[in-house]
């Protein structure tokens, strides 16, 4: 690869890392703040991606929508749709221990996948959805990529800043109190359930946004583009490794894990075909193992929750 190619690759990576950082931030709201186990991250991501695509792509026969609306509208719709799906699920399961939420989110993610694979009216069938506009898409290729990198990380910074503010507000303090001592917090009133539901919905909306950012970057999407377990799992390990409860940790984890993940892909791509497919599964195994190791040896993550809160207060 020449320098330009390398640079392009780095920008491409940078955008994907930013998207995963958004997912990781969204999960941090749910898990880090509220202790909620969402095992269907990919589902909310996919909903956001599809909705924004359908809002903004040109119309096509045999497929619904295609309204060619501005990208901003698509992104907003993505967040709203993810939140709207999260709401009833949270409403039903948050009365119980987080295990039930985890089961339900696995179910939601699977059903979203089923719907997308079954309903060609929605997903455009084998062709998928194409022609999704990209902000700054009219610029020359390199500049367009670079501008999108800026946009993605701009979103990361905005979300980070908003979450930090929210965390410093009474809402955030109450979230932490609930997580530290659920019994004592429950004694404070029925509000616990409402706070956790808010955290779940907010996190889901951020995941939906990540999906939208992704789809406008790729400009096309098919149901196969998103491997649900892989996306969900990568985000989980990003957050746990980075440091759950710490927004900077969430971002750091996204950077580290994505670099490891995609450089291992570069490596396995060079293997002879016979073992390349097996190597793909070994990579999955290693990711699973990594989670176990982090849970065992560094459960608080690289940037534990306390560190940064203390410094800033």
């Amino acid at each position: 690869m020449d320098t330009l190619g390398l640079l392009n690759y780095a920008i491409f990576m940078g955008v994907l890392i930013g998207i995963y950082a958004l997912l990781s931030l969204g999960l941090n709201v749910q898990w880090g703040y509220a202790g909620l186990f969402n095992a269907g991250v990919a589902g909310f991501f996919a909903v956001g991606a599809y909705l924004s695509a359908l809002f903004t792509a040109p119309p096509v026969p045999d497929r619904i929508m295609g309204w060619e609306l501005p990208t901003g509208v698509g992104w907003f719709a993505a967040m709203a749709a993810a939140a709207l799906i999260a709401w009833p699920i949270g409403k039903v399961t948050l009365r119980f221990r987080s295990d039930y939420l985890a089961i339900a989110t696995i179910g939601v993610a699977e059903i979203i996948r089923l719907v997308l694979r079954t309903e060609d009216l929605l997903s455009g069938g084998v062709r998928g959805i194409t022609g999704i506009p990209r902000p700054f898409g009219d610029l020359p290729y390199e500049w367009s990529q670079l501008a999108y990198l800026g946009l993605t990380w701009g979103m990361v910074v905005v979300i980070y800043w908003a979450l930090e503010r929210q965390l410093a507000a009474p809402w955030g303090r109450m979230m932490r109190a609930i997580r530290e001592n659920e019994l004592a917090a429950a004694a404070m009133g029925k509000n616990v359930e409402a706070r956790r539901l808010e955290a779940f919905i907010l996190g889901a909306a951020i995941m939906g946004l990540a999906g939208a950012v992704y789809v406008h970057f790729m400009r096309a999407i098919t149901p196969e583009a998103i491997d649900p377990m892989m996306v969900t799992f990568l985000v989980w390990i990003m957050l746990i490794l980075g440091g759950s409860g710490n927004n900077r940790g969430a971002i750091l984890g996204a950077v580290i894990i994505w670099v490891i993940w995609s450089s291992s892909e570069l490596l396995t791509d060079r293997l002879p075909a016979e073992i390349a497919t097996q190597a793909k599964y070994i990579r999955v195994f290693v990711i699973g193992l990594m989670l176990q190791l982090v849970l065992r040896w560094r459960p608080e993550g690289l940037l534990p929750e306390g560190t940064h809160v203390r410094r800033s207060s």
Partner: protein
Amino acid sequence: MSGLELINFYVIPGLISGSIYALGAIGITLIFGILRYAHFAHGDMATLGAYVALGLVGSLALSPWVALPIAMAITALVAVVLDRVFYRHLETRPKILTVMASLGVALMLRSVVQVVWGVDPQVYSTGIVRAESYGGLMLRSRELITFATATGLVLFLMAFLRYTRWGKAMRAMSDNPELARLCGVNNEAVTRLTWVIAGALAAAAGFFLGINTELNTMMGWSALLAMFAAAILGGVGRVEGAVVGGLVIGLVEELSVLVLPSQYKMATAFVILILILLVRPQGIFKGKVL
């Protein structure tokens, strides 16, 4: 459609997959009830069991029916080791971390199966087995064996839990762990025993899934939601509940094809799960609500 057709095309397949779900749901309900966490690697444990049996059939040229008990024993052992290596050290931490670890184990088990056996669908034995008519009821011998074995395993387990010293210790642990410890019940031994049972039954579930359809590396994961729905529908911690729950889910899934596109079969388990959580979270047999 005649009543007989309804039975042959929907009820019998529903009961078959229902028995398979039941075998998986029993392990899930025991783990949920005694160890108190949702075990997400259960489906992939079933996959592993099915492929271990396939390995025995392929390498030792065993009959699948001989391979089944061996695969159950091996998977039971694997379950005990997985608990020892990946779950036990999390015992004193919030249970949800174990749930998370189990999701990681699910991924690891699946990738091991994919590396060792590949991702193409496989079968235990080739050739078409014709259904025989029993007064109009069309049944294949493997279906009869599935029913009979599942029933046998369930009855055996229930008798074990009801009449033996360690069976009672398991129930005591599920009922009131503090008091069980005060009675001198060894926590670790009960945990190990729970994994032996859950692992063996998961392998049986995977095997029957494989022999009645085909083996593929996603088979267990795809059945996980139905198994959880069955366990919660029956009542967490209730073996009889898991059986009834499994049969109900299996039947409803098959019958849903009459009104829904068949691709959405597995969505019915999810709908039942949400409904039961709304209406009666303790399940049919008044199980635990964690």
